[in-house]
């Protein structure tokens, strides 16, 4: 049961302990309250989680008495309830409405745990219904917690009467270094009292809280009695830093208990604890821990750290800058900057930025509760940049206002609360289970991510970009990460007919310039296009599919490329008509071709070019002979078409003519063929065709005995083979021409390159020459200087000699 409810548990922890920064305006956040509704849990974990009604107060109470609650907030969740949270920053009038609806919710949910968070001295009490009352319009005065006047604070909250409901209260207190103190007022002894007072006032709540302390965990609770609270510990005072307990943190917890605020820190910074220094910190900021300096000690580090974090939390809405911090701190700016950067990196400060990116809840969070008084942090295996408080209010508000069924309402409410609570409604969790967000940039990296295996950094995921950029996090290196690939979207592999067609069209148009092809297809990537093209079934299989679509764009392209053949093809087409008609007239005779009749009809209708001719299924003979080439969709043939299109109609025509001439030379029988004659000899001598046709038909043993008329009728098939030959020859010629052109171009390019090389070498030579000239100049200068020096020396010598002479003369 407890395990099952782990997520919930966690969420409670989470919302209580983590610093969070609502996106609503600055001080609204101050009014954060937490509403724990133990109700109809969606987790399906515990036996109690059936429905809101079932999760009765009774069961809760018994649980608690069993010691399961034990004054700890997360045990509340042991109830199998859902934890909802209200950021109660509603504006004035809304407050009431919201409160009412909330009450309804609470009642329906049977058990309500509210977490009170005193805000200002007037309203700070109400530990019970803080979340509802929420002080909305009031601004929390910084640092003036109930600590200022605990009794006043505790007792005076006229707006809150009657809100003490059943359930348990979580209360946050704040103490200097252990912000995260929290407590659940045990219901055992208080239940009655609570009931008594529930119609009256929250004074009771205050009392209860005071009274309960001893009974619960007074021994280890770091927060202190509210009556002893001193607001000086609250960093948000922003004033009296001289006496801030940072410097004497040892006493703080006992001395001060203050308003506890809820902050959010990223899950990957879950190691953070106010009271301890984690090995991460030691690893990243060695200078403070190597004992080399008097001013850089762990203690001072902690003070720096705490100060900076507190400073940030004074106003989590704005980004705290180092420049701002360093004016207040004494010490080497470099060291402080490293501390600052470290905290910034881990999201312990300035975390609000980018926090609005994602609302993905962590599916199965765990709790790090190693530090009794520290900030407890939820760790999720899937780390999402902790979402900020999205327009949380509106959501909760809307959900509350719009629901009629209280039980349901709780659910809605809870699921809305996901931005804060890492508990997802089941469906959503499933849906998002595979979605992973980068811990650094927040982007979706479900497809490919780098997952951290370091035990400290459970569930740190990086997207490839961040990983490449080395944003591994302090103390981590690339080795700590493993590459993980998510399942790729299967849908993206599917090619629609339309896409395939446009692919083919694109290939026909751009050849193997795959970039352009991919652009043309637009819905697929370059690699996918290539892959698909390779995968495309060629030959009959593909044709039988594509046959449904008459004259693909390629055909047209191809035909335009085969201008030279057009005239003859027209003739062929006419012939085809004839043959088809023949078949129609005596269908009984033409047994074999009868099967292809339907197709033949179809094609003859659209047979305006070679392409459609070629793919006529009834051209069985040709198909047998030349099947790989006969298919227009063969890459080779489309290439050929393309090539002839490239060289231009006239060249193609010339090439074709030359090709035909050669073919005729090789095979004189073809000389009178309609195609071979297509260019020069028109009209065609029909009977000449027969020889060829007969030859071909002979291959089909079955049809050997067929009458001559049949052979005559079959003649339509023969030309296509010949025509194909001619076509191929033409294209080869065209290709040759094209190759020639390319060769020329290449040669020109080579020449150009050669010129370039020579030019550059010349330049180098010139540069060298220039350099030498310069050297020469310098040398000359130096020579002059030396010369000058020599002259000076000589003059000096002269002078000295002169004076010596003078002296000696006098002497």
């Amino acid at each position, binding site marked *: 049961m407890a395990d099952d409810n782990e997520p919930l548990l966690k969420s409670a922890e989470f919302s209580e302990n983590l610093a969070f920064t609502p996106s609503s305006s600055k001080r609204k956040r101050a009014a954060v309250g937490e509403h724990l509704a133990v109700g109809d849990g969606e987790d399906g974990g515990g036996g109690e989680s059936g429905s809101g009604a079932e999760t009765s107060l009774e069961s809760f109470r018994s649980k608690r008495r069993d010691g399961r609650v034990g004054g700890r907030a997360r045990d509340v969740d042991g109830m199998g309830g859902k934890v909802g949270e209200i950021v109660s920053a509603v504006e004035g009038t809304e407050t009431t409405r919201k409160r009412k609806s909330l009450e309804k919710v609470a009642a329906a949910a049977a058990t309500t745990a509210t977490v009170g968070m005193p805000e200002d001295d007037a309203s700070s009490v109400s530990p019970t219904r803080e979340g509802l009352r929420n002080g909305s319009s009031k601004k929390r005065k910084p640092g003036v917690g109930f600590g200022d006047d605990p009794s006043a604070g505790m007792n005076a909250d006229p707006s809150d009467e009657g809100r003490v409901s059943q359930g348990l209260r979580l209360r946050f207190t704040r103490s200097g270094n252990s912000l995260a103190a929290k407590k659940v007022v045990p219901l055992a002894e208080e239940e009655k009292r609570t009931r008594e007072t529930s119609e009256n006032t929250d004074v009771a709540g205050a009392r209860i809280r005071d009274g309960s302390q001893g009974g619960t965990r007074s021994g280890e609770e770091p927060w202190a009695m509210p009556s002893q609270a001193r607001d000086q510990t609250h960093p948000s005072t922003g004033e009296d830093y001289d006496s*801030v307990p940072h410097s004497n943190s040892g006493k703080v917890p006992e001395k001060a208990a203050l308003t506890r605020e809820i902050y959010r820190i990223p899950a990957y910074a879950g190691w953070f604890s106010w009271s301890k220094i984690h090995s991460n910190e030691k690893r990243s900021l060695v*200078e403070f821990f190597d004992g080399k300096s008097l*001013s850089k000690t762990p203690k001072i580090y902690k003070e720096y750290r705490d100060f900076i974090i507190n400073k940030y939390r004074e106003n989590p809405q704005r980004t705290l800058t180092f420049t701002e911090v360093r*004016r207040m701190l004494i010490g*080497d700016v470099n*060291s402080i900057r490293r501390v600052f950067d470290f905290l910034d990196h881990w999201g312990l400060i300035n975390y609000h930025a980018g926090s609005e990116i994602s609302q993905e809840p962590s599916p199965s969070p765990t709790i790090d509760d190693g530090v009794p008084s520290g900030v407890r942090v939820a760790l999720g295996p899937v780390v999402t940049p902790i979402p900020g408080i999205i327009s949380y209010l509106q959501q909760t508000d809307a959900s509350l206002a719009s629901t009629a069924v209280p039980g349901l309402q709780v659910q809605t409410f809870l699921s809305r609360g996901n931005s804060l609570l890492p508990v997802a409604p089941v469906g959503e969790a499933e849906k998002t289970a595979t979605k992973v967000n980068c811990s650094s940039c927040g982007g979706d990296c479900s497809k490919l991510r780098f997952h951290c295996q370091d035990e400290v950094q459970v569930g740190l995921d990086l997207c490839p970009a961040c990983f490449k950029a080395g944003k591994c996090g302090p103390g981590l290196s690339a080795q700590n990460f493993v590459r993980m690939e998510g399942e790729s979207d299967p849908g993206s592999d599917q090619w629609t007919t339309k896409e395939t067609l446009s692919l083919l069209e694109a290939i026909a148009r751009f050849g193997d310039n795959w970039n352009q092809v991919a652009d043309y297809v637009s819905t697929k990537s370059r690699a996918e296009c290539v892959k698909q093209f390779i995968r495309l079934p060629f030959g009959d299989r593909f044709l039988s599919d594509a046959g449904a679509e008459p004259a693909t764009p390629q055909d047209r392209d191809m035909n335009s490329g085969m201008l030279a053949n057009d005239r003859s093809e027209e003739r062929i087409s006419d012939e085809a008509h004839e043959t088809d008609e023949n078949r129609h007239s005596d269908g009984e005779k033409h047994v074999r071709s009868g099967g292809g009749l339907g197709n033949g009809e179809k094609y003859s209708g659209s047979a305006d070019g070679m392409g459609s001719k070629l793919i006529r299924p009834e051209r069985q003979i040709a198909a047998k002979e030349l099947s790989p080439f006969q298919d227009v969709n063969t890459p080779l043939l489309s290439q050929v078409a393309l090539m002839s299109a490239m060289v231009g109609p006239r060249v193609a025509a010339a090439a074709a003519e030359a090709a035909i001439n050669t073919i005729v030379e090789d095979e004189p029988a073809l000389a009178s063929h309609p195609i071979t004659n297509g260019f020069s000899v028109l009209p065609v001598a029909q009977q000449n065709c027969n020889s060829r046709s007969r030859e071909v038909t002979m291959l089909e043993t079955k049809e050997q005995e067929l009458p001559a008329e049949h052979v005559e009728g079959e003649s339509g098939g023969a030309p296509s083979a010949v025509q194909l030959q001619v076509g191929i020859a033409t294209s080869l010629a065209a290709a040759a021409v094209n190759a020639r052109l390319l060769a020329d171009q290449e040669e020109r390019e080579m020449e150009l390159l050669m010129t370039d090389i020579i030019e550059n070498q010349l330049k180098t030579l010139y540069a060298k020459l220039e350099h030498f000239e310069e050297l020469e100049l310098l040398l000359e200068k130096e020579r002059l200087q030396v010369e000058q020096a020599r002259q000076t020396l000589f003059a000096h010598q002269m002078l000295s000699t002169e004076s010596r002479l003078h002296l000696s003369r006098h002497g």
Partner: protein
Amino acid sequence: MKNAQPSTSRPPLVKFRMPTAENLIPMRLDVEFEGRRLKDAFTWNVEDPDIEIYPFAKRITMDMDLPSGFTPLISQQMQTQLAEFRALEAQEMATEERVQTLRLDLRVNNIVIHDQFLWDVNNFESDPEGFARGLCKDLQLEDPEIAPAIALSIREQLYEIAKQNIATGRETRISKKVRRESGVDFTQPSALGSSAVNFMRRPNSKISIVRRKNEWDMFEPTVGRLSDKEVEAIDAREERNARIKRRQEEKEDAYTNRYVRV
């Protein structure tokens, strides 16, 4: 401070270098040739071979479209500055923490920045460039020239302090007391070992990492924006000062020349 006793043994001395993570020394150029003047400042990595200076100078000349006569002059100025460093390199410097106040007081184009902060001048992991970048980011200064200028200014101060420390180093080690009493010490506020702890001490003998509030303003950067007119005026004044200085130098040169010749 009981828990963290620093090692009693004095930190070892090291070969002189820039007390920053990267061993970059600040360099300034002020070259005039054929009526054109080049003023520039940058950092030079002393790990680079010295012979790279000439190509570098040539590069500057080319990049700035200056007559090639600038190259030897630039190269010479750099050589001089590098030679000074090389001479210092022969000496040793202390590595113990030595926190001093650095001041920024500079103008880049039309931005004037004043700032003051504590800097451990013997922290070999310090990063003036990073600091400057952060500062510019925090202050939202977009001019890309500012951060390098700040970093250079920091480096110049560090360099200067390091040089001074070498000069006074021996004496410092002999008697700190004298230095403290004389009160003219560069590191005056941190007379006791110049550790940051000394800055943290309060009159009530407590140690606080938080600065007294009335001092916050002093350690806060202030940024001023000058109008174009003001910038012009300042430029003109600087130009004039430079000219006067140059004329004086020329005079001196002429004098010495005459003196030597005769």
